[in-house]
């Protein structure tokens, strides 16, 4: 329990620490502040690839945050900053890649798989419904009756 409490406080401390490192970036215009936070949330830290620029404490992430901060202070727009980053680090720096031929598979692949699954499912359901509704042919009906009689006779003799 004590260990749990300790780790909990420790984690709280960590989040506070991170908030502190981002608090140094201040803007007079709240819209700019929002843009800045959006940009660094949307950008991947290339050193630790599963962290955003906002969440990473890697040296490069800090440098890039400072660079983006300076650019925003210099009056550059969100679009200009995104172009700046993509020109240097490629689309990989963006967490949501732009829609273009080379990224069609990741954007539309899931939809296509979903559609294929839907068609297959539909066909299976349809076939099941059909097979349960099909009536027995005359020959099959006769055979069924014969089998039923047989089993009844067997049961009689067993008794």
């Amino acid at each position, binding site marked *: 329990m004590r260990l749990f409490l300790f780790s909990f406080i420790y984690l709280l401390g960590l989040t506070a620490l991170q908030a502190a490192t981002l608090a140094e970036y201040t803007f007079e215009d709240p819209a700019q502040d929002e843009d800045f936070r959006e940009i660094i949330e949307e950008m991947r830290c290339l050193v630790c690839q599963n962290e955003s620029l906002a969440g990473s404490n890697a040296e490069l992430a800090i*440098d890039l945050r400072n660079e983006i901060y300076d650019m925003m202070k210099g009056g550059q727009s969100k679009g200009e900053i995104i172009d700046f980053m993509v020109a240097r680090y*490629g689309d990989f720096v963006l967490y949501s890649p732009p829609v273009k031929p080379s990224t069609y598979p990741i954007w539309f692949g899931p939809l296509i798989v979903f559609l294929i699954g839907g068609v297959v499912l539909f066909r299976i359901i349809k076939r099941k419904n059909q097979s349960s509704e099909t009536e027995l042919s005359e020959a099959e009906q006769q055979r069924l009756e014969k089998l039923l009689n047989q089993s009844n006779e067997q049961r009689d003799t067993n008794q």
Partner: protein
Amino acid sequence: MNRYLRYSVPLIVFGIIAVFLYKGLGMNPREIPSPLIGKSIPEFSLPSVESAQTMINDQNLKGKIYLLNVWATWCVSCRAEHDTLVHLARSGKVEIVGLNWKDERVKAQAWLQQLGDPYTVNIFDQKGRTAIDLGVYGAPETFLVDADGIIHYKHAGPLTLGVFNETLLPMINDLKAKGS
């Protein structure tokens, strides 16, 4: 026939997934295609590792094919790579320009003195601003640059003789053939 087909569907799907997963095993997540290939190296003006008074800019580097190697003394892989660079420099197959990244001048100088200096030019990028323009996200990284300052290839991670002989050397020979 239809039955065989139906039972083979899961096998085929499994096969496709297996191929993708197997390919994924061999892929290096650190190798990110550089958008700078085919473009000029960024403009810069930085001091040399040797002296804060000596300035080097991108124009100084024009007129020769070279490898631009980004390194630092705090980078363990750079230490592993260094002997290969020294070996390559001695072989005379290609010139190597060093970009010392976010480092301390004294440490960089000591490194080159102790381990040998494979670089014809030593650029000192203490703030890492030029490295950002080069899209550097880790050290070491090596760029192949032609006489006009155009980047033709980028290798992330330690350069090995294998990578050099198989990938870079043919490209260098191609460039030389075109240049003459």
